[in-house]
């Protein structure tokens, strides 16, 4: 599912209006994108109250920083989704959220079969990244996707994958570099 060009044009128009502190446009913008942003916050945080706070912070930031948006930062929706993601990660770290609820499931990741990543997300991720995830080995791919979708830190990855920290770090780092070479082609 991707936004149509029309949607992106609408978002751009609204964002420009928001940069001039147009409140009606800000509210329209909220109604257009808040459900997508909230879905992402919720997926990452796994907690409604934290996701709600993160969404709130994200929109406060969008209000104050709309004038800083420019197309080098990607499409308007992508820019806003990034803000939502960063604010959620901040809050998770700040509150030292331990994702104990997911750990039992996470232990299966090592097998590369069942895991905290829905299979649908894993395959969708592959499609979205132009097949580049296929260039990675399973450990690299799952480490990266777990960080992206679940906000797991290196320490948490090492814990749930029952793998030394150094190994996990190298999976993530090497995986990202392989991904980059592929995405740049």
């Amino acid at each position, binding site marked *: 599912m991707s936004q149509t060009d029309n949607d992106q044009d609408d978002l751009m128009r609204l964002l420009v209006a928001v940069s001039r502190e147009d409140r009606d446009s800000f509210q329209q913008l909220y109604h257009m994108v808040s459900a997508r942003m*909230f879905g992402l916050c919720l997926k990452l945080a796994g907690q409604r109250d934290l996701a709600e706070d993160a969404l709130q912070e994200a929109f406060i930031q969008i209000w104050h920083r709309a004038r800083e948006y420019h197309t080098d*930062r990607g499409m308007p929706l992508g820019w806003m989704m990034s803000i939502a993601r960063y604010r959620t990660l901040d809050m998770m770290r700040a509150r030292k959220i331990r994702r104990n609820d997911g750990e039992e499931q996470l232990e299966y990741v090592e097998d590369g079969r069942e895991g905290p990543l829905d299979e649908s997300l894993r395959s969708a991720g592959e499609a979205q990244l132009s097949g580049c995830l296929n260039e990675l080995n399973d450990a690299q791919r799952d480490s990266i996707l777990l960080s992206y979708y679940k906000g797991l*830190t290196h320490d948490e990855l090492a814990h749930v994958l029952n793998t030394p920290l150094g190994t996990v770090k190298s999976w*993530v780092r090497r995986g990202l570099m392989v991904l980059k070479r592929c995405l740049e082609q």
Partner: protein
Amino acid sequence: MKKTPERIEKLAAEYVLGSLQGLARKRFERWMMESAAVRQEVWFWEQKLGPLSDEVAEVNPPSSVWNSIERRLWQQERHTGKAQSRANQRWFWPGWSIIATAAALVMAVLLVQPSSEAPQMQLSGAIVQAGIGDPLWLVSETGRNNLLKLRSVAANAAEADKDYELWIVPEDGQPLSLGVIAVGGVHQVTLTDTARQALSQSRTLAISLEPLGGSPTGAPTGPILHVAQLYEI
């Protein structure tokens, strides 16, 4: 740590992914403020990894979220009913000739990791100018001793016989001078409790061009060159 292309590449990817944390994340955020090349690399990853978010299901947030946003952004105005208190007009007090605000915009990269040593919120931001890749000054508040630090990065010296003067722009009333600031190095100001209070409410700083030694009147007399909004970290 030097900003080598290899380090930038590696750290930017981890920053966007979220696995870069703690002090390393803070340090990298400072790199982002300082270098356009670092920001470009971050934007690359934001755009490349962004599509992964497309697959996450939409969820409607409760209406309380929007209510909270409205309350936080515009509560004061609702109370006073004054259009003048709008954030963007805060610094348009009479008598100021504002010549360069359009060019001055605030990058204000959020330093997001709360300090473990100082539970109190701290303010941070950057004073930037359109068309210049690096920020002119980086601003940060330290948790202890009410200290505000201004580090000059790409600021040029004021013209001959002039000085830059730093001001807190309060929600209401006259700006408070924080003195003349030099270009180069780090400028530190100890805020009085009153100044700290005003800054924590308005979170707005301004820089004006003044005669050598600063404004003779205690209020800004020259053009306002920059207005910067700070953010909590």
